[in-house]
């Protein structure tokens, strides 16, 4: 007697919702074991994380602050992953977006009317992010160079480049050695809604809705899905694969670039240490947990932001490292990856002696009898 997986006729709908939910609960349980090993009460820790995140308006607004870059990079990763183009360079694309925006805000703002400064700076960020993703996209589309590695390598290059700028030529001469540029002129500040929550939140939500429509209602959405599912089929259908890859990655990089642009104009208002906080990597988790659905990205980003803020809080209140949040985030995908099988397969029990299969999870379909 042994277990076997049998392919389902259609993806199981309940499993689509249940699997991410169960994954989250399981990851909390697994991390709880880890916490217990380090003499921390898991329930107490989670309670501290929860109250740390939701306990005060100030902390809750911090959740929204962290949600913004997660949504934008999460969307960026999602559109690329739909084509099975493994863009893990959102971090670098975000950084280059921040760098370009800072460059415009710092050095060009004197030459143009004040109302142009912010749109110009943000556009520069979007463009820089798009180009930074465009390089690996073109290398993959035309030369078939492995995109996972090139996108990742360019993260290191981008981060080193930004460090070079704010430690070196762009460093604020009046900053007493602080690693950062001078503050941007006020014309380049992104308006804030409440607390540190800036207009980027509106951009992020609108872009998620726009992408949802584009994915489900346009030719582009259809073509990227076919490329992801079956490249040979895409070729026979006459889909311009190389062009679609490059265009989609320009969109993906542009979204990450925008997140860098809104971070520097909305939060720090200068280019400084701490622009790359790992949002680009968390974005991978966001995208996969959201099953590459732009609307779901909104909610998953919020959840990840809760974990990040909660992690900061337990560092202050319980002396546990904030990296606990990273461990939790890393753990979430494991049950999710394992559980994905159940949306496409069901578990059946096979009797070795008779060779007869018995469905124990779901009733058998008539044509199997």
């Amino acid at each position, binding site marked *: 007697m042994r277990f*076997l*997986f*049998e392919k389902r006729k259609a993806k199981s709908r309940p499993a689509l919702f249940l699997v991410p939910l169960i994954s989250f609960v399981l990851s909390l349980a697994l991390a709880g074991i880890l916490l217990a090993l*380090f003499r921390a009460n898991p329930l107490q820790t989670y309670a501290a994380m929860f109250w740390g995140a939701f306990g005060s308006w100030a902390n809750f607004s911090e959740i929204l602050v962290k949600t913004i870059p997660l949504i934008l990079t999460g969307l960026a990763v999602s559109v690329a992953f739909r084509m099975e183009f*493994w863009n*893990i360079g959102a971090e670098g694309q975000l950084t280059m977006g921040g760098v370009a925006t800072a460059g415009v805000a710092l050095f060009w703002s004197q030459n143009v009317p004040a109302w142009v400064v912010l749109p110009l700076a943000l556009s520069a960020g979007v463009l820089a992010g798009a180009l930074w993703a465009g390089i690996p996209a073109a*290398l993959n589309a035309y*030369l*078939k*160079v*492995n995109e*996972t*590695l*090139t996108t*990742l*390598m*360019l993260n*290191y*290059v981008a981060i*080193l*480049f930004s*460090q*070079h700028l704010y*430690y*070196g030529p762009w460093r604020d001469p009046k900053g007493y050695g602080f690693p950062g540029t001078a503050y941007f002129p006020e014309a380049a500040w992104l308006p804030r809604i409440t607390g540190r929550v800036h207009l980027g939140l509106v951009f992020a939500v609108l872009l998620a809705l726009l992408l949802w429509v584009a994915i489900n209602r346009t030719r582009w959405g259809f073509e990227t899905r076919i490329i992801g599912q079956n490249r040979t089929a895409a070729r026979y259908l006459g889909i311009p694969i190389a062009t679609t890859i490059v265009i989609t990655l320009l969109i993906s990089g542009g979204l990450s670039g925008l997140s860098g642009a809104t971070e520097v104009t909305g939060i720090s208002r200068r280019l400084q240490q701490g622009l790359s906080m790992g949002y680009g*990597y968390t974005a*991978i*988790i966001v995208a*996969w947990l959201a099953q590459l659905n732009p609307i779901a990205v909104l909610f998953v980003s919020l959840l990840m932001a809760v974990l990040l803020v909660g992690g900061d809080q337990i560092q202050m209140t319980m002396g*546990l*490292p904030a*990296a*606990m*949040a*990273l*461990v939790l*985030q*890393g*753990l979430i*995908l*494991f049950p999710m*990856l*394992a559980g*994905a*099988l159940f949306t496409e397969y069901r578990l059946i029990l096979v009797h070795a002696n008779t060779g007869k299969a018995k469905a124990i999870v779901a009733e058998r379909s008539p044509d199997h009898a």
Partner: protein
Amino acid sequence: MPELFASILAITLGAGTSLIYATLGEIYTERSGVLNLGVEGIMLMGALTAFASAFYSGSLIVAMIAAMATGAVLAGMHAFLCITMRANQVVSGLCITLFGSGLASFLGQTLGPQSNSRYLVGLSGPKMTPLAIPGLHSIPILGAVFNQDLLTYLVYLLVIAAWFFLYRTKSGLNLRAAGENPQTADAMGIPVSKVRYAATIWGGMLIGLGGAHLSLAYTPGWAENITGGRGWIVIALVIFAMWNPLRAVLGAILFGGINAVQFRLQAAGTVIPAAYLNMLPYLATILVLIVMTWWETLSKRIGAPAALGRAYVREEK
């Protein structure tokens, strides 16, 4: 001048060791048909457990075993997800890396002694010292080759063993068959899933040892992000090596050499900003990938195992 060459050679070999371990591990894994993008995370965890266990036990052997065990556990998780649960191998590997780096960061701030506020950063523990081979180590310039640490000597033996195993033994042939054509391998009676499990877990042990070399010998001690992207460079090195253990040495020496030149230039104080020198390994990786891909298309040689990254599903009736 001879001293300069000797020092560049010494740094090259030292920097190359961790890369060779991990590249070897990834070659075993990928040859069996499993793509493991978790190398960066496994190396980080290997480095962490090696340093922590060396610090508390005082034994380098215990440290090496701990790093291998950690590598086996993480690679085992990857194997379970990819082989048994047929998860997407790219995402599963990324997940191992994200989880590994998060956990290493967490443990680096919890495993330390009370006197160091539970941090592991800034502590010094037992480290591997160079073992000079009598007679040979005093040869001018080349003497550096015979004045290395234990793990470095060991890795060159492991390279030869890997080559012999993969190309000259029946089990090695089975392993390669599982990665090239699992359907046929299965029909021939090769237990594809078991072979893939074994290759992935053994690969993880080697990757863990690569991490251990960093925290025990190359840059002794624990530092957040001690690997600095080496795990990703390794994935590129496997492509550069065309999945051949002997060629892996070439690649690792090349990248070790870039590290060494970078060190020397920085020490000598050049006009090139440090940031640009630090970009070298990453830019070189991209360049190597472009050249290798271009060359592969041109010569119509495909080095990658045919079934790499694809789960094997036996069609059941």
